[in-house]
């Protein structure tokens, strides 16, 4: 596949600025309800998400906003005019989707009862809400998909994008991956994984992170997954779509 443009939104910031330095950046140490000690996580600050492009997304959740910014940046970075095209598709991979909104919806059920919940929160809690926003904002009318898994979801999305391009289903695909952090997921991480209490990721110590990366791709001879620099220190934090962020960082550096 040939990469025409890359968009990256992560705890380090956005686009090329986010990867301009290889210096180690400390995660944020969050005050959490489930343990006394601060919990390290690479989270995106509110300033990163302030952009006029999100003006029409007042009701969207943070997960959709992170994803949409990365998608818009990939399109802008490609310089390709895709508006209104039904020859462009989207494949967005996520392991956990907008889980904070799912829990917010459950808050509604607990606090207000089954019949007192917000329809807006429900609409935003479905996995494909982010792609719906991206499709509407960028007027992409090809297949617009959200795929999910815990075993290499981004890599599965890459394989599907290659297949779409090979069979002529699309001329271009906006291919991405993303996940968000949140208190419940951080609790689950603390129970399931060895957390790096000092915030320093090693092969034995994990720090969760959030972000999204998108690539505008078309048919051509380029090995996307083989292009990542193996010496790269994974200072984005990690969720299961982490490889998308690492690839994006490599692409932005190369460009």
């Amino acid at each position: 596949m040939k990469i025409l443009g890359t968009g990256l939104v992560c705890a380090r910031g956005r686009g090329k600025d986010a990867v301009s330095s290889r210096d180690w950046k400390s995660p944020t140490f969050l005050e959490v309800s489930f343990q006394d000690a601060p919990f390290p996580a690479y989270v995106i600050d509110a300033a990163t998400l302030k952009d006029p492009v999100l003006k029409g997304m007042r009701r969207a959740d943070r997960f959709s906003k992170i994803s949409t910014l990365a998608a818009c940046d990939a399109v802008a970075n490609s310089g390709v005019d895709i508006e209104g095209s039904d020859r462009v598709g989207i494949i967005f991979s996520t392991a956990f989707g907008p889980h904070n909104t799912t829990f917010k919806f459950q808050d509604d059920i607990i606090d207000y009862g089954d019949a007192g919940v917000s329809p807006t929160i429900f609409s935003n809690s479905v996995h494909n809400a982010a792609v719906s926003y991206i499709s509407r904002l960028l007027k992409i009318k090809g297949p617009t998909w959200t795929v999910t898994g815990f075993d290499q979801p981004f890599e599965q999305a890459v394989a599907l994008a290659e297949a779409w391009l090979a069979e002529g289903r699309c001329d271009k695909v906006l291919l991405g991956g993303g996940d968000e952090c949140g208190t419940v997921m951080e609790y689950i991480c603390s129970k399931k994984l060895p957390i790096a209490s000092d915030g320093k990721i090693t092969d034995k110590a994990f720090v969760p992170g959030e972000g999204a990366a998108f690539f505008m791709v078309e048919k051509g001879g380029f090995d996307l997954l083989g292009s990542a620099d193996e010496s790269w220190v994974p200072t984005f934090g990690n969720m299961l779509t982490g490889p998308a962020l690492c690839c994006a960082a490599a692409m932005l550096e190369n460009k």
Partner: protein
Amino acid sequence: MQSKAIAISGMGVVSAAGVGVEASLASMEAGERNVGPVSIFDSPIDLPVFEVKSLPPRSEAGKMRTLDLLELAVDEALAGAKLDSFEGLRVGVAMGTTVACQLNDLGFYSTFREKNEAPMDSVDGFLEGNLAEAIAKRLGVDGPKLVVANACSSGTDSIGAALSWLKAGLCDIAIAGGSDEMNRIPLCGFNALGVASDQPCKPFSGDRTGLNLGEGAGVLILETAESMEKRGVASSLNVCGYGSYADAYHLTAPHPEGEGLERAIKTALEQAGISSDEIAFVNAHGTSTPDNDKVEGRTLLRLFGEQIKVLSTKGYTGHTLGGAGGIEAVFSAAALSRGWIPGSAGFQTLDEEIGLVPTVGKTEISGSYALSTSLAFGGNNAALIIGRDKA
């Protein structure tokens, strides 16, 4: 982009209409509608739903009901395909769902909220319950695996993903479809959106007032001709066309002119290499919501004319969300092979704004192609064409 058809070598289904293809067809032929109040969890929302009564609410601690339903359908499909060993075969698994991709166990969350800790059983069930990964692990296959989370078109799109894999040579066989359980989260959500009816649903009827939720799973075994030949099996059914397009219009409402749906259908026809008058019947998405049925009914009439035979099997299953596309693909294939479709349950009066009268009562069909459509929350539309070899 006309392309080679992929064979359907097996299929399995479970829904309120029955467990298994034959039981489901018999139930629909008899016009049975197994609809009633929610029984598998407590909720003050008193709306009719379509549940699979033969399945206990929970099988193992933490295991998702969605996976229980799917395993029933997969087992039937594999038996039909005569697949009891996968040695030497590259097998992919593509599944659609909405419920199973969310960590929506209220017991877990409410406990965590109250105590800042909670038992991890349901989290384990969620992490081990990714439908494609769980089925691949259960069967010991290691081809591509993917869960499609495109809301209500997920099941149809997972079949589309499988077709793409098979055409790209990523696998020889793909197990594809969808599954969803009756769950409190979507029940509350669809009730809040005001699209759930307090009566049994009436797809395309002028007096329809909304959808009923349902649960179930539908699975196709898709296979290349080379693999079928190698295994020494044959099938007269195939998937020959698929289209997927977005409305790029609204988070929850379909495009008023059915733009994305029309593109999806036209692409599926083009890929199958057939014209619209070769479609024997359409198994429509037909949720029974005012918006969906109006947009879909008008689009179908515009593309196929008044003579087209249309039904919605949601009158027998309810709206099974991510399972719907798989279930409806199975029903379409089964009906095509038997030469009849059931009546579109629930239809009573013509909606003048649509002008479409679906089939009433068991209807014989002739022809070799069926179309199954799906319209999703979020704006994705999918169309699948199933073919039958001419006798």
